[in-house]
Structure formats: C-alpha cells, structure tokens
C-alpha cells in the first residue's frame, strides 16, 4: 500500500475495536486451495491466534478475485478489507495489538530480514514448484486451481494463471533455475531458520512474533501436503528443531480445533490431493 493509503487505513482502523465477526476468506479447502495460498492463510490465522483475536474462516471459490490486491487470504473486519500478512500486521498494530513491541530495534530489523527471506525464498520456491514444474502443474496445480469452474473456462483460467506466474518467475530471475536448484535454495533457507531458532522455543525470547507465525504457516503446510514427490517435505524434515517448533505451535494454538477438524467443521485442515 502507498504511504498515504497506509496512514488512511490506520486512522480509520484505530477508531474501532476488533469485532466478533471478523472473517478470513480463502479458496475452497478441500479441492481448490494450493500449497502457497494455504501457507499464507495459515500464517495469518496463526498470527491472529497469537494476538488472541477472534476470527472466523470462510471458504469461497472466488476468494482470489474478491481480494483487493488479488492475493489470498484477506480479512473482512468491520467494513474494512485487508489482504496479505504484511498489511494485516499493520492493521492490527493500528488497533493496538502487536507481537513485536517487546523487541528492540536490532531484533525488529532482524525479524524483518528473516521475513523477507521467507517471502523471497520459500514462497517463491513454492510457487515455482507448483506452476513451473510441469508434472506438478499438470497433475495437481491446474486441476485444483480450476476445479470450481465449468469447461471450457477451467482450462482458460488455469493456463492464464500459469502464464502469469511464469512471467513473474522470469521477472525475479528464477525462470532459468532447475528443480534441483530450487530444492537446494529451500534447504539453505531451512538451514538459516534452524540456526536462528537453535534450541529456543520461539525465534525471539519466549514470546511468539509474526516471524513465528509465518514460519509455522509455511513449514506446516509443506509437511502436510502431498505433492508428486516428497523431496520438499524431506528437506524440512532434516532439521528436527524446526519439526518440534511446528508441532509446538500446532499444539498451543490449534489444538482445541484439531479434533473437530476431521469432520470439516474446523477452520482449517491440511490440503490433500
């Protein structure tokens, strides 16, 4: 968002408390949502649970087109609509809820650096594997993405999205990478995270921050999603402290609903092919 828009949103947001009926919108859980979208959505849900803010999750087939920026997830709070984790963090901060207030400036800069690493490396790797690897794209991504639409619209939309993502990959210079190189990048990213985490409970002190929410969202989704090969989840599994970290956050913040999750009444469930 531009600076002026951010200032405007903060002004409006600060005046009202967080309502009970705040809703998060994401694509359909069972058949449509993709790995990258599920990771982003889970990160936002984890963050809001860590802030102890009530949230409902609503699945819509056109969530991506409803979003003001074109990316999922987005939240509808009062009469405001905010999409993506960064702006949502700003929005909750304007309402007086924040997880990173206890950090000093050095730590905050470090946290921002790691979040940038996640977005530039891990998220881009997920998009690459989904859309640029032809086997995954043909068997999983395109059928899932186009499942709510009738023929022939489904093929048009799936190929249109694929073309758009591939163009973005060329723009960031990932088009020439091979799949092995991408897996290597993922491994390096996980190594950096593992080293930073060490034996701590959370990345900074004993309190979770937005970095914890983002890491949880991506790693949990990678671990629980079936792709054409297990290589991606294997890269994460080599670091046991990341596994315990993911498990701990799941236990602490999502435990109460996991029982109900099997019947589909829970707000989230890992996507399966």
């Amino acid at each position, binding site marked *: 968002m531009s600076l002026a828009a951010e200032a405007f949103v903060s002004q409006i947001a600060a005046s009202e408390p967080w309502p009970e009926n705040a809703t998060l919108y994401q694509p359909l859980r069972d058949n449509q949502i993709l790995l990258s979208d599920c990771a982003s959505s889970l990160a936002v849900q984890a963050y809001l649970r860590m802030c102890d803010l009530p949230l409902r999750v609503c699945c819509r*087939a056109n969530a991506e087109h*409803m979003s*003001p920026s074109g990316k999922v997830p987005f939240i509808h709070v009062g*009469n405001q*609509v905010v999409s993506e984790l960064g702006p949502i963090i700003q929005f909750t901060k304007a309402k007086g809820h924040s997880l990173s207030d206890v950090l000093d400036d050095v730590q905050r800069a470090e946290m921002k650096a790691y979040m940038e690493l996640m977005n530039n490396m891990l998220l881009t790797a997920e998009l690459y594997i989904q859309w640029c690897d032809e086997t995954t794209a043909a068997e999983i991504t395109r059928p899932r993405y186009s499942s709510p639409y*009738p*023929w022939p*619209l489904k093929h048009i939309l799936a190929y249109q999205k694929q073309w758009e993502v591939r163009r973005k990959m060329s723009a960031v210079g990932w088009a020439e990478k091979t799949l092995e190189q991408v897996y290597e990048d993922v491994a390096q990213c996980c190594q950096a995270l593992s080293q930073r985490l060490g034996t701590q409970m959370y990345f900074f002190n004993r309190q979770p921050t937005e970095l914890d929410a983002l890491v949880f969202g991506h790693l949990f989704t990678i671990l629980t999603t079936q792709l054409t090969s297990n290589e991606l989840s294997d890269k994460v599994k080599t670091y046991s402290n990341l596994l315990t970290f993911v498990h701990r956050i799941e236990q602490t913040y999502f435990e109460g609903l996991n029982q109900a999750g099997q019947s589909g009444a829970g707000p989230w469930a890992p996507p399966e092919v």
Partner: protein
Amino acid sequence: MGTVHARSLDPLPMQGPDLGVHADDVEVIDVEPETKQEVLENKDVVVQRVHIDGLGRTKEDLLGYEIADVFTAKNLIDVMKKSHDAREKLLHLGIFRKVEVVIDTSEGEDALPNGLDVTFEVTELRRLTGSYNTMVGNNEGSMVLGLKLPNILGRAEKLTFQFSYGTKETSYGLSFFKPKPGHFDRNVSVNLYKVTGQFPWSSLRETDRGISTEFNFPIWKTNHTLKWEGVWRELGCLARTASFAVREESGHSLKSSLSHAMVIDTRNSAILPKKGILLKINQELAGYTGGDVSFLKEDFEIQLNRRLFWDSVLSASLWGGMLLPIGDKPTCIADRFYLGGPTSVRGFSMYSIGPQSEGDYLGGEAFWASGAHLYTPLPFRPGRGGFGDLFRMHFFLNAGNLCRLDYGEGPRSHLQKLAECIRWSYGAGIVLRLGNIARLELNYCVPMGVQSGDRICDGVQFGAGIRFL
C-alpha cells in the same frame, strides 16, 4: 411531333429599304397537323427479358427472387412500379451502391410487338471498406477501427469487424451475417465479441467475452429471433470503496443461454412514433447448455401511440420482467434488472432504485415500469417545416417498482411487494430527435414515492438514448 417553322406575325414593311424580298416570295407557313401520340398507359405489354448488368462477385441465383415479380407486370405503369419495387429490394440487400433501371422495347428475332426489356444497371460495393476514428470519453481516449466486407461470398453475406483500443480498455467485435436468398428477413448471424463496461451505480466493472449465434425469421406479422449465447463474464470492483456485497460477486463465470424474442412493431418510427404499437416479449433460459449460471428470465415491453388533435400524440408504455434462479445458487448481479434514470423512471438517478448496500445498487429480480406521455409541438411552433420539427415538448407521468425475490414467502408476497412503495414521478420537458437513431431529452422532474436508499435527481435531468420509458 411535327416541325414548326419560325414565322412573323407582322406584315412585311411596304416602304423602307429594298431588301430584295417581295411579298410574293415569302413562304406560306404551313403547320403540320399534330402527329398522333401513342398512348401506352393502357396498352398491354409483356416483359420478355430482365437483365442485370454489372455483376462481379454476386451470384446470379441470389437475385432471381428479387426480380421475379417484374415478369408479372401487365401494363407500362405496372412495369414501372414493379421495377421500382425490385430496385428497392436490390438496394435493401446491402450489396449494391447504385441500382438504375432502364426499360426499353424488345429487340431481336423473338421480340413481340408489345415486348419490353428491363435492365437493372448495378454497381457493386467495394470488397472492403474501412473506417478509422478516435474517440475521447470519460478520462480515456481510444482509437476505433472498423472493417466491413459486404457480399464476401456472393450471396449477400456480410462480415464486419470492429476493434477499439483505448487507454483503459480494449474491446472488439466480429460479426458474420447471412440472409436466406430470396427472403432477406430470414437470416443467420454469428458474432464474436469482447466488451467491457463500467457501472458506477453499482461500483462494478464487467468484462464479457462471448460468442453468439442468432436466427431471425418472420412469422405472419411478427418477427422472431432465436439465439444461443456463450459468455465468459468477469466481474470486478470499480473502486476500493465498493460495498462487500458487490465484492462478493467478483470473479469469473460462464453463461450459456438460449433465448427467444418476438417483436411486433407497427409504429411509423422507432424514435418519436406518431402511431402504432410495439410489443416485445423476450425469454432467456440459461444453464441447460453448459456454464455455471442457471436461470429463467422473462421480460416484455409494450408501447401504444395514438394521434390526437392539433398534431399531438398520446403515448403509453409498460415494461416488466422477472428473473427466476434455477437451483440453489443466488442470481448474479450482472443478470438482474435495474430501474431508474433519464431513460427509465425519470426523476431518479441512473439505475438507482431498489435494493442497495452501502450506496451500491444491486438490482432486482422482478420489476415493472410504466409511462404515459403527451407529446406536443413546441409552443408557437418556431422553425416550423425545418429545424423546429425535430423538437417536441412532452408531459409525462412515470411509475415503477423493483424488488428481489428472496423474501421466502411465495409469489403472493412478491406481488404485494411490487404493488406497495411504488416510485413515481411527473414532469415536462423538451425532446430532440436525432435522425432515426436516438433521442435527447431535457426534463424537469418531480420524483414521488421515494423510498429510503433511492437516489433522486429532482429538478432538471438530461437524458440521451435509444429506448425510453
């Protein structure tokens, strides 16, 4: 006719210079008797041959039907009338630039004494005509390229292509038209198009990419159209401040529908008719030939015109429609009806009547609207016989109502909903007729029966369009 010699009325002068002319030498002027004129009006003639000269790519079998009538003429006046009718029919096909008729007596061995040859000298239109314009609209400019290929396969088929490239949006349309030889009113056309529209009253942007096939045919006095249409619709919000109800409608959908329309039009003009009636009934069924939108839509339009004393015309019209969703998905905002504005219930802002959410109008699934007008010439008739005839003054009374069909209580409650809280307005204004295509109005309106949520435009309202209530 006989020859006429010049002659002088004055006797030759007796005095004066000797001109060497003597009275006895002057010729005696003799007027020959009038030659008898052949009176052909009532004489029987036989049309022996009809030629068409100047055909290039047009196939001859196409024209046989248009000129067949000329052979049945019995006398000269009849021949001239039927040739004129044939000429009109040939021009109506839209493949000739000029058609001239030459009627001559027959020549040749088998020529009858009362035989005639009729020749149509035609000039075909060029194979390709193009046009190029630039347009400037609301904060955008665009260039429009049009191409027309008349008569491409020789039987009056027409291919038109229009492409508009603008700073904001691009749109195009390709259309192929083929009439049935001999029956121009029975025709088929196939269209391919992409259009974009912006609807500020709903904060909605719509992009339609579609293909449609349509058959037109007359039955007795009515004109019928059967059409199949497949459209890929993309809806989006026009501004960040769009209401959430409109935001929920964003996305892609595919509509595949069959529709039928019947039109009876006995008016003398479509724009400011002086007499005649119009009846239009349209139904559309979507969802049974594919797509993910399923509904049954009916709408009708009735207009009656009658001439009164002193060149004034009384006109009454009634519109109505209903949209029934089939299945459990709710209707889409792009399919619903809208009401209000200078072309519909005057006195209200454009399409600003009925259900709305945060200032965005969502349209309704059932509506009716009616209008009564008295058109009179301008007072004191300025510019009579020329420019002043394009203007008319009118006094009007409009009423209408619009509602959703989801009150869950059955048809009786919907009828009740449509009958209560009627919006209506009255007023007067000036109407300008633009050729036979469009009409401009400047009215002073007083809206009444305004419900909360409607946006009104009381006072002076300007409207331009083709179809008015």
